């Protein structure tokens, strides 16, 4: 196990390093930031001074080493636009994104689980067929368009919910959170639902499949034969057993929820990391792009590492397989 752990950690480290090269070279291959950041009226001397201040006169490999050295000290460069450390900018926006992502995952379980349970228990009922058709739609509908339609219906036509922004926030652990105030929750409702849409469909399908499988198990038949009430069989014997895989999958989806919040945040002008990266790409704010990509890559590698390690602990076959190669 220790050998596997060490191997896997070294592997993850190599992936981080490789990604840092890809991201750095990729981002620094686009356009010349000098052209964007320095006014065309600037004379030669002003230009050169700016180039030196930004460290853009060094060869690319040297720039990369400087970048890597600084990155290890937690310095991912200063934003060209905000003139603030890129890392700080992103960390400032991170609570908003995390809040949205967790809100979406909470909603996906809250809505998806009961619907999936119903569809699994009564697979032939018209309502179940409607639920399943709805889940197909949930997979097919483009997220951003659904977001627009939500705004159109609930913000413009009905006027129930605010269309954009984060609303009032309350402080917790020294950070600002929207879910602590009523106004913040009202602002969060639509974006969270929008982001949850895909996951709801996923949870419905997983739950339904799980219920249909579990219902055929001997222990369910036995519980029924014992004369337990259908409610008890469903909620204690069946429900408990399908909860584990469903929660696992939803947990695994955390990473992709954070990645897809880029779209939702842009639709609802939610001031999170996703909106920041889109804005930064549009103005070619390289340090922020690099910092965002590095942080998100690190996040994914960590999530994948945790998943792999948990699986290898649960399933010895995974360990043996990697030993073979």
């Amino acid at each position, binding site marked *: 196990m220790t050998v596997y752990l060490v191997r896997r950690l070294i592997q993850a480290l190599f*992936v981080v390093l490789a990604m840092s090269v890809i*991201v750095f070279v*990729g*981002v620094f*291959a*686009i*356009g010349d930031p000098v052209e964007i950041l320095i006014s065309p009226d600037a004379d030669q001397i002003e230009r050169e001074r700016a180039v030196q201040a930004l460290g853009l006169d060094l060869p690319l490999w040297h720039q990369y080493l400087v970048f890597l050295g600084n990155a290890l000290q937690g310095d991912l460069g200063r934003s060209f636009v905000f003139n603030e450390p890129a890392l700080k900018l992103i960390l400032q926006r991170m609570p908003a994104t995390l809040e949205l992502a967790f809100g979406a995952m909470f909603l996906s379980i809250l809505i998806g689980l009961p619907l999936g349970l119903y569809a699994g228990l009564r697979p032939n009922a018209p309502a179940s067929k409607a639920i399943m058709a709805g889940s*197909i*739609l949930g*997979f*097919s*509908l*483009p*997220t*951003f*368009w659904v977001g*627009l*339609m939500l*705004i*159109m219906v609930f*913000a*413009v*036509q009905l006027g129930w919910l605010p*269309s954009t922004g984060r609303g009032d926030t309350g402080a917790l652990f020294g950070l600002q959170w929207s879910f602590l105030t009523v106004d913040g929750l009202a602002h969060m409702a639509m974006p969270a639902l929008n982001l949850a849409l895909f996951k709801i469909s996923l949870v419905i399908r997983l739950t339904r499949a799980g219920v249909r499988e579990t219902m055929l198990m001997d222990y369910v038949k036995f519980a029924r034969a014992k004369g337990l009430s259908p409610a008890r069989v469903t909620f204690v014997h069946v429900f408990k057993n399908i909860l584990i895989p469903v929660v696992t999958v939803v947990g695994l989806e955390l*990473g*992709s929820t954070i*990645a*897809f919040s*880029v*779209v939702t945040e*842009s*639709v609802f002008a939610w001031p999170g990391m996703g909106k920041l*990266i*889109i804005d930064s*790409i*549009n103005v070619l704010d390289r340090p922020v*792009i690099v910092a965002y*990509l590095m942080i*998100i*890559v690190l996040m*994914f590698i960590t999530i*994948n590492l945790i998943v792999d390690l948990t699986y290898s602990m649960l399933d010895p076959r995974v360990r043996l397989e990697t030993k073979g*190669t």
Partner: protein
Amino acid sequence: MSDATVNGAAPPAPRKDKVETPFQRFVSEFAESKIAVGGLIVFTAIALVAIFAPWIAPQDPYDLAQLDIMDGRQEPGTTGGAGFTFWLGTDDQGRDMMSGIMYGLRISLMVGAGSALIACVVGASLGLLAAYAGKKTDTVIMRLVDLQLSFPSILVALMILAFLGKGIMNVVIALVIVEWAYYARTVRGTALVERRREYIEAAQCLALPTYRILFRHLLPNCLPPLIVVATMQVARAIALEATLSFLGLGVPITEPSLGLLIANGYEYMLSGKYWISFYPGIALLITIVSINLVGDQLRDVLNPRLKK
């Protein structure tokens, strides 16, 4: 299924001595699902509209001479200065939305199908190579696939477009890079089984060149799952392209796809002018759903495990 008797009995000709070709069997099995046939018909109609847009659209949305700014933001059903009715309204430039959608479909389908096709060729070739060569080649290619699939598609696409910038070609490149891994994994899975069959051994004994064994013997037998994946990936590519264009990272403003049309209507929606965003979205939705319906049925028909 009672559908089979309704759809499958098109020619009630003598059936007992007729030998069904595999293709005929495939067609009749596909037709067992009315929904899938409906999806196919709808998709064909959409594709025809997209192909013939310049001839059937009431207006050329890019010909500035045909646009009248006075017709801007008209509601659906109003008749404009040029004398024809804007059934789906107009955008802020006075463009007929229906024509805009027809031209937008062209770009969306072109980018979606084009990138799926290129990704299919690249991914299938690498997948075949990985399965046939094995050892180091296999490890390298599959590690790459694993690495890439561990990141969500939108993130990979975002990263590549952050490197390359906007443009139709760049979107296609980004989509190809996002998608090739799915094809590679699918083909490798099938090819690993097929390469142990006798016909491959026979081909090897005949000392056929490797590329011939790969593409003439191995590939045709890996086609069924590849077709299913390709169908689904076209829908995914169209959706992803629309998302990227909506975010302002996709196609340029001069060649608006459906995603960009939706983005253009965003600011007007808050003032109640819903049609600029609504109808392109409906067109996008119908396209994606119809492709997915066809793909779903293809998966059932082509899956050897479900063969009766």
